[in-house]
């Protein structure tokens, strides 16, 4: 298997993010089902984590001292699968099997089937708690791994997110970083219309978190924030990443319908042309 070199420069990361976006479109088009909008909005963050920030070894996915990553908004797993494949966890040929019978790539992330998936997720509001458990374990065993969890803005309507928020603050888990993919859209409509969650930054601060706000599509911003959080001590960090749902594909950007709709071949071709430009 071809192995890429990490850590990457900002420019290399930007190129890799474009490759991952293409993988996402191709996967979901081939599967004829999936969630492109939220996969594309978190693509830059996931790319930065896998190709620059995280201490991981694709040759040894179970390495006990590795950093952990959880995409708590598990429906956006095409971005996770693409990053794992490009990073060398498994052959890229698997990407075309998304959601098929006998595939290692389930419709929602499944740790016992896919190399590199650190936690099974899909039901929203679980991933931050699971990451919290991993972080508690890291503290107990005096390991210096870091736990990274991406949550969605719609997902933040789940009460369990706030249970985890309280607990991470109680135990001062500075080895846990949450990143909010703040793309403002959810399945039914805009987050504001369905169930407003603002003021988000104030909420996370009030729950005892160190909060950073960034442009979730500016690779330098992302890398700077992620690198800063690893050395920040005394409390957990929430990175509120302002993102665009469907980012990179003009006709998908900020359009709610692309939350959970697969592009047809023609739409996929158009999207790929834009992404490869």
């Amino acid at each position, binding site marked *: 298997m071809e192995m890429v070199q990490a850590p990457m420069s900002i420019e290399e990361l930007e190129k890799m993010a474009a490759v991952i976006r293409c993988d996402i479109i191709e996967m979901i088009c081939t599967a004829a089902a999936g969630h492109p909008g939220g996969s594309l909005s978190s693509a830059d963050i996931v790319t930065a984590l896998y190709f620059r920030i995280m201490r991981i070894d694709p040759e040894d996915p179970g390495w006990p001292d590795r950093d952990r990553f959880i995409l708590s908004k598990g429906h956006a797993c095409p971005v996770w699968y693409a990053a794992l494949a490009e990073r060398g966890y498994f052959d890229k040929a698997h990407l075309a099997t998304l959601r098929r019978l006998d595939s290692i790539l389930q419709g929602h992330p*499944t740790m016992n089937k896919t190399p590199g998936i650190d936690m099974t997720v899909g*039901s929203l509001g679980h991933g931050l708690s699971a990451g*919290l458990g991993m972080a508690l374990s890291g503290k107990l065993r005096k390991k210096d791994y870091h736990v990274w969890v991406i949550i969605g803005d719609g997902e933040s309507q789940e009460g369990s997110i706030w249970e985890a928020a309280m607990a991470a603050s109680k135990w001062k888990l500075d080895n846990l970083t949450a990143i909010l993919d703040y793309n403002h859209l959810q399945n039914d409509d805009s987050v504001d219309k369905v169930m407003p969650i603002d003021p988000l930054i104030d909420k996370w601060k009030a729950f005892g978190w160190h909060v950073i706000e960034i442009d979730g599509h500016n690779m330098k911003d992302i890398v700077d924030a992620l690198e800063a959080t690893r050395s920040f001590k005394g409390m957990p960090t929430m990175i509120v990443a302002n993102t665009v749902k469907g980012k990179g594909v003009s006709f998908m950007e900020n359009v709610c319908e692309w939350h959970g709709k697969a592009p047809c071949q023609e739409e996929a071709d158009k999207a790929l042309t834009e992404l490869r430009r």
Partner: protein
Amino acid sequence: MSKNTISPYRYVRPDILSILTSDDLFTKAERQPTRYSYAEAILELGAKNPDIVVLDADVSKSIKTNLFAERFPERSFNFGIAEQNMMAAAAGMATTGLIPYASTYAVFASMRALDMVRNSIHYPRLNVKIAASHGGITPGPDGVTHQGQEDLSIMRAIAGSTIIAPADPTTTKLAVWAAAEYDGPVYLSFTRDPVPVLFDMDYPFEIGKAVTVRDGKDATIIANRDLVVQSLVAAELLAGQGLDVRVIDCHTLKPLDIEVVLQAAHETGAIVTAENNMYYGGLGSAVAEVLVENHPIPMKRIGVRDTFAESGPYLELLKKYGLSAEHIVKAVEEVIERKS
């Protein structure tokens, strides 16, 4: 029991046998809520195994896992009144090799946090032990909101679940220790109210292996959790009428010990199940499924009928809601009658 015949009982303490049908059973015999037996067992386990961690949801004083917290503060985590977070965090801990015992009440473990219990613990088969007190209508005075009368049925519906409902303090400890040796999720169900110490430590506890605690040939009572003692009482009462009834402590509801169930069906020809749980979905259903597919015989289920209970003293609730030894006696008489 005549003194010159061999006792049909197995592993049952002699002091219990002498008072089985007396009021002393629930007043003078050594008794303990099995939630406390769990707390004692986990304390011993924690001393032996540094991977054991205990998670609480603000009922550690009730379950007495606060003793673990005092002894091993660094391995004790109180999540507050947030069972969902506790269960998913337990899953996360288990991915790193820890063995979390997540402790709360049955209603919250099996219902409030069920999504986490299914998706984050059972689906990935993570090594989390769910320690659920207040199973069945044992939290008598607390009333319906705290009476876990469905937990066994609910947990049985989840793929790959292992469910243990031990009968007494002795087998509770053995179950807690056995669960630690088992790689995968285990749901343990305990009583809020005290039950007599029925068994000696020579009880051969093995997950998935039901234990015949009284031999008999006329019918079999298959019971779990706090209705095992009621079943022993029933068998003794029936012995007084000249009926020789087998009692099986089916501590593991799932996987069910099919072999022992079918052997009882073949050898005794009539079966009564007894559980302090809904009479559908739990032990009665599990046994009925095996019998109907393999060896249909007269059978009757003792369990909570399609109703919620109410507040009240534990033993009086058992009587009012059809779960007492007298109800089991009646059911056994009925199935034996149907045999002929």
